[in-house]
């Protein structure tokens, strides 16, 4: 543990370390593993919090670690450690072998690592070119000052987080890749208060691999948006529980597709037997109005990546085409255990998690309708302008909080309502998405699942669901 790194030379993240990594992989194979993968990570993060008119927290953090995974047949063992010395890595892979109780005489051949695919070449200066704490603080302070213009706003917060990650991925099939990832998020939160009335509003913005994105962030537009939302909801009545048609707004409205359907298309769910779509490939699972995509290639999008955490370049996967299931989201273990080809979706929060099949930028493709046409088509329904969090149970039931909702009467938006929860099941709701708007937009978010919290974007145009259960009072 502490101070031991001076006994053994450690991994140097500025070097390729090829010889050492080959030695560790060879050691694993010599002990009987079918496959060995090493994921090395070096991080440099910071978060800044501004409350009211003061910087109240600046929290830097940094670290390093290794995640070593071995496969034997379809079983896998995973060991993570902070000890990046030769001794530490050899010890970890030996532990992984022992865990799987491998006693094999048939040894896999290892022909060495390929030439490194270095995705980090143009990224080495990012840490120097991203905003300084002074610049971040000033912009956040301007934002919270701007939020003051509404006197009923009682709590004003602005936050920024930067995650810089350098990774090296090496595995026994010769994969050898190096990358630098940069994610920045900025958010505004308010609580408005008037006597017994309270409302809250929040917005988050995020980017990947775009060092200057924060500098370009339009904080006044963001502040206006969050103020408008919180003030509209301050005196809103609670919604009545009912079943009605709903229109879900674009951008973060896509969180429902992400949670209710997207997760069920990850091969980890097939492995567990928890997706109703396991045997539905090339079958209709949604309304023909629905085409859905998961990809990791949109420049700057929060879920984009140059290479996934298993060393594969991401691809664009059309999951559902005109209502028909076309593809699952797959990683190495998923391909091995379910037969679905990898899609460059092997992702993990950090070195302490084994990669798993995870979404990246996931969205419903745009249709032909305007937002007004969707709303005009409803006599009595709910417009969900802003969605909160949600969850999906092991049987596919989902529920989502509506942060900002408006009743639809005779094709028009009427009064704001609060306390609504959308409840349903993917298999029942997907066929009821009957209209898609032409205003597709993406929104950043964090997705927590088997391999930790990863950056994603969700997205959709405005969509209409013909009927859904709305929880209320």
């Amino acid at each position, binding site marked *: 543990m502490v*101070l031991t790194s001076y006994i053994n030379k450690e991994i140097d993240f500025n070097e390729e370390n090829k010889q050492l990594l080959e030695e560790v992989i060879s050691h694993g194979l010599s002990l009987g593993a079918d496959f060995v993968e090493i994921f090395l990570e070096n991080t440099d993060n910071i978060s800044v919090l501004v409350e009211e008119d003061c910087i*109240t927290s600046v929290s830097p953090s940094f670290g390093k670690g290794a995640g070593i995974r071995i496969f034997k047949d379809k079983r896998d063992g995973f060991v*993570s450690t902070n000890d990046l010395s030769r001794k530490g890595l050899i010890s970890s892979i030996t532990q992984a072998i022992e865990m799987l109780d491998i006693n094999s005489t048939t040894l896999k051949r290892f022909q060495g690592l390929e030439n490194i695919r270095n995705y980090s070449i143009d990224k080495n200066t990012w840490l120097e070119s991203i905003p300084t704490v002074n610049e971040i603080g000033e912009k956040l302070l301007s934002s919270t000052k701007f939020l003051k213009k509404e006197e009923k706003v009682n709590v004003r917060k602005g936050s920024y987080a930067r995650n810089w990650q350098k990774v090296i991925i090496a595995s026994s099939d010769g994969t050898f890749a190096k990358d630098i990832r940069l994610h920045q998020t900025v958010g505004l939160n308010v609580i408005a208060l008037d006597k017994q009335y309270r409302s809250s509003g929040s917005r988050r913005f995020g980017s990947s691999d775009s060092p200057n994105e924060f500098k370009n962030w339009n904080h006044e537009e963001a502040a206006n948006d969050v103020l408008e939302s919180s003030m509209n909801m301050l005196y809103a009545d609670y919604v009545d529980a009912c079943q009605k048609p709903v229109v879900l707004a674009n951008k973060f409205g896509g969180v429902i597709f992400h949670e209710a359907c997207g997760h069920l298309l990850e091969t980890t769910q097939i492995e567990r*037997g928890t997706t109703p779509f396991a045997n539905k490939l090339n079958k209709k699972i949604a309304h023909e109005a629905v085409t859905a995509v998961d990809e990791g290639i949109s420049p700057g999008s929060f879920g984009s990546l140059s290479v996934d955490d298993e060393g594969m370049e991401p691809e664009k996967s059309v999951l559902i085409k005109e209502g028909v299931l076309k593809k699952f989201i797959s990683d190495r273990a998923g391909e091995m255990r379910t037969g679905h080809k990898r899609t460059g979706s092997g992702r993990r929060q950090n070195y302490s998690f084994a990669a798993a099949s995870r979404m990246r930028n996931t969205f419903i493709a745009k249709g032909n309708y305007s937002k007004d046409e969707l709303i005009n088509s409803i006599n009595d329904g709910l417009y969900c302008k802003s969605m909160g*969090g949600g969850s999906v149970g092991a049987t596919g039931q989902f529920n989502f909080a509506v942060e900002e909702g408006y009743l639809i009467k005779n094709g028009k938006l009427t009064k704001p309502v609060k306390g609504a929860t959308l409840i349903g099941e993917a298999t029942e709701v997907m066929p009821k998405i009957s209209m898609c708007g032409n205003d597709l937009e993406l929104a950043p978010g964090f997705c927590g699942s088997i391999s930790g919290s990863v950056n994603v974007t969700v997205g959709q145009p405005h969509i209409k669901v013909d009927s859904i259960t709305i929880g209320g009072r």
Partner: protein
Amino acid sequence: MDLRDITNFISNSAESLNIKKWDFGASFSNDFSVQVDKGIAKQLKASQKQVLTLRVWNDNNLVGITTTSDLSENGLKKALYQANLASDYGNKNELTDFSPLAKDPIEKIKVAKRSPVGIKKLLEALRIAENKLLNKHSAIKTIPYNGLSESFFKRVYANSEGAQRSYEKSQAAIYLYARAEENNRKPRSSGSVKIGYGLEDLDINSCIEEAAEKTISHLNYSAIETGKYKICFSPESFLTLINAFSSMFNARSIIDGVSISNKESIGEMIANPSLNVFDDGLHEKNISSAPFDGEGTPTKKLCLINQGRLENFIHSESTARIFKTKPTGHAGLGSKVSVSTDWIVVERSAEVISQDNDLNHKDYLGKYIYIEELNAIHAGVKASQGSFSLPFDGWLYERGKKISIEAATVAGDFKTLLKEILSIEKKQYLTTSGISPHIWVKELSITGDA
């Protein structure tokens, strides 16, 4: 690993950077876990983790912080350097200090530290447990979420004024979530979690029985009508709810304006007088008990609600100073120090005034909804507004018969709920997050699917 070594190294390095005041908290852990799929080892995991959070005070008494997993000499030096830089941005409006209790004696707690049994034994135990659960009922086809783990960890705190604390513990946990399906009806899923100091302390058979009973009992379900219903919360569900609204006891949240309480709330009648609530991190049944918090303050039992009256808030050093009281042992360690509850104990007070105070879920024949487990807390609770709208697993009871509820949400206002408690049963139940009896509430809004 020696706390003294790290402390000496940080002390010497701080001196060379002219840093006179500092403290740190660190944890070191070794974790092992297994998952199975119909007897086959799914994923076996081991991890060795270390993390240290370091605070330094500059000449203007402003605090800077850095967290790192790199505990090499270079790593620790870099952490000191970065924390020193960060102190330029320390909060001028709310100064932070060492806890005045960081050197007070800490209460000796029952520590049953077990030795690692190893992955093979964990795997064997989980295979047996999975097999037993699968054989409980023909409708149970898979146990999609399962795991057995053991952890061994050490936590330390030290500061430049000589405070030094550490403790070591072991902990094991098993969870089994079964999925059952029959007669082409919708699948149902439920489960159970048990924790102990080590594998030998885990009540695995109870975990299997509970997971099977909960899952199977929900197979025959019906949709219910939307409306207002009398409610009985299970101990687990009431603890879930009170933890979700624990910002009402949290001085940090009150200062930040995100609590439904305010500085003047102490002494207010906020609940039915028959309700007592304590935070008791050192309770003998709390497997996760810690003798001190992130700032080195000793953990202690604290009364939060006494006969319906708000009695105390939980504090860090800085919130305690603002409220002119003492820290309560509930702080984390951060640039902005967080405050959180440890282990909630709910009980019926001596002051029982409810006319319906003899309600008992085992023999009540009226119509009510029993809420077994609340879900999606992160999405459905608005702690700063006091409202909730949450999906739940539960039953509709009428004339002693129970029907599993297909899919429903319960919604309400937490302050109103506390005041509309009808009855608190006498018998308390131990859960993984605290202790509570069954709690009856006059009525709450239920959205059903009928």
